């Protein structure tokens, strides 16, 4: 793991002003992603996963306020002029979304959607770009790519559509690929195929991949490192194996307990629900649902510190580490 860092977040924050107050969706996130690695970002719904990455791409609705720092290959994106963002989008950082049917334009042919992506960043004739698009479709395992390129999204199956999204995302050989729950909408066999394609991209193109999901199982299969998020903050992070074997944050432990696996006969969902992000709980946001919470948890915001192979943002990480999932 000596590869250079391609994507780096420092104290990254996103706030949405609304009628009822400011929604603090992301409250200071640090992250480094290196070329050729897959980083899993996990967390319950509403924990701020999507907002983080849409935010750094400048794809959030107009009212969103973004602060901190987000750099791609050294280029600062927070507060960057439109032109800079445009150059980054699709060229340095590409995104794949959860529901490929609604993410693809229903009235444009598949081939054209990819051609548009290519020609946005490379000066290439339409015909040449179309040839390249067909090649890409072939690369992601779409049979008869030439014919398929002339079809529309609704003529594809879910898995095939997600392949199209991936083909489009890798069209300009981006340094970072952000996959926002790429497999959530697909059934299990197709899920596995899509994950394989992502792994292939990682190894063949040395791209950095950020895999956003709330499925720890998916992360376990393909990711090198994991970053757990809760209420807009990082709660625990580190190599996949370490996190699975002895998580030290009660939230990660809870996530693991809610995972179906061999030798466990009961799934235990985390009790309670995610906090209201307009007025999140003081101190550790998870304390209101945490079985191990103590008084101190409401007083200070725990910062990440090293616990074994992991970094954990729990005051009691050392004692809880032994409890296990």
């Amino acid at each position, binding site marked *: 793991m000596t590869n250079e860092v391609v994507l780096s977040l420092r104290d990254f924050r996103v706030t949405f002003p609304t009628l009822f107050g400011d929604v603090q969706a992301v409250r200071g996130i640090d992250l480094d992603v290196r070329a050729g690695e897959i980083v899993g970002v996990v967390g319950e719904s509403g924990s701020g996963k999507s907002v983080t990455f849409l935010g750094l791409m400048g794809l959030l609705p107009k009212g969103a306020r973004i602060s901190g720092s987000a750099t791609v290959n050294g280029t600062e994106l927070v507060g960057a002029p439109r032109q800079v*963002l445009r*150059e980054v989008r699709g060229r340095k950082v590409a*995104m794949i*979304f959860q529901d490929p049917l609604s993410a*693809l*334009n*229903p*009235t444009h042919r598949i081939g054209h959607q990819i051609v548009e992506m290519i020609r946005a960043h490379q000066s290439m004739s339409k015909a040449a770009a179309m040839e390249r698009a067909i090649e890409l479709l072939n690369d992601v395992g779409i049979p008869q790519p030439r014919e398929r390129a002339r079809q529309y999204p609704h003529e594809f199956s879910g898995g095939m559509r997600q392949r199209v999204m991936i083909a489009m995302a890798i069209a300009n050989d981006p340094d970072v690929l952000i996959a926002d729950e790429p497999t959530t909408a697909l059934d299990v066999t197709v899920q596995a195929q899509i994950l394989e394609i992502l792994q292939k991209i990682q190894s063949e193109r040395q791209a950095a991949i950020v895999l956003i999901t709330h499925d720890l199982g998916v992360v376990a299969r393909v990711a090198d490192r994991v970053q757990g998020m809760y209420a807009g903050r990082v709660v625990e992070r580190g190599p996949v194996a370490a996190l699975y074997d002895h998580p030290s944050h009660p939230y990660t432990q809870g996530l693991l307990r809610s995972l179906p696996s061999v030798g466990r006969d009961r799934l235990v969902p985390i009790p309670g629900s995610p906090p209201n992000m307009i007025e999140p709980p003081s101190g550790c946001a998870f304390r209101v649902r945490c079985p191990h919470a103590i008084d101190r948890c409401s007083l200070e915001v725990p910062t990440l510190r090293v616990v074994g192979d992991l970094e954990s943002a729990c005051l009691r990480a050392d004692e809880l580490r032994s409890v296990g999932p």
Partner: protein
Amino acid sequence: MFRFVMRRLMWALPMTLIITFVVYVALRVGTDPLASYLRVNQRASEKKIQQYIETNGLYEGFGGYVRGYLQWLQGFVTFDWPRSIKGSREVWPEFRDAMFNTLRLGLTATFLGILIGLSFGIFVALKPGGLRDATVSTSSFVAISTPPYVSALLLQLLFAVYWSKWFGQSLLPTSGVYPPGHRGFDLVLMIKHMILPVTVVVIQVVAVYARYMRASLLEVLNSEYMRTARSKGISERRVLVRHALRNALIPIVTVAAIDIGAILGGLIITERIFSYPGLGDFFLGAYDNGDFPQMMPWMFFFTLVVIAFNLLADVLYAVLDPRIRLG
């Protein structure tokens, strides 16, 4: 594609026949052509009456209606139209003139109205929720809630009556195509006479289309593929034109084709108020006299127009939206 159009066309013919037959029966029952003939021509001779009944095929009973309808249809397609009951005038020349007058008014107003309406809709959808949105949305709501004759009355009051009171001379004429007694063609005069009626129709059309476009574009702008488009790094202009506008216009095109009936309805009312000699005025005149020979061609013509535009809407939608399966 061709087969799809053909299939729809084949549907259209029986539809036209059935609908016009229903309309025929409704008019026969509703206007009682014989009674209204006798009312208008009170001293008609027995022979004349008999002749009127025969040329119009006014047979009694359901079988008689069918026979009468077929006879009427034959006469209609061979341009052998029965004469009007009042003054026994030929129907076609008047109908044709009225049609051209209506087309001129209708096309101008529809074109202007849709153009302005769509622009307003786009203008507002790109910045929803603000003062601009509230202003346009509220005024289009007011316009939709205002029947065309009310806006016509108010415009007439202002531009004709009070303008001449204040400034000694009326600004715009309020009736007809030309001033009474005018002969020959005069473009400027014609346009002057069209301004107020066109304005009345345009107000309605603008309001309706501004709302359609706003809703349609907002829906597209909130869709996920817009985010994908932006994530590609293409220009914002291209995102808006190629991805947003194009898709937002698809449902509008269809609505526009189906809406033709509503626009024509507005025209009828407008024509009446401005004594504009178009198809609306023609119909209302015929209706008041109970003039069966004048009303039937009118109804047939409108049925054709309505069906044709519905067909057009179907075809356009299928052409523009790949998601619609043909067949």
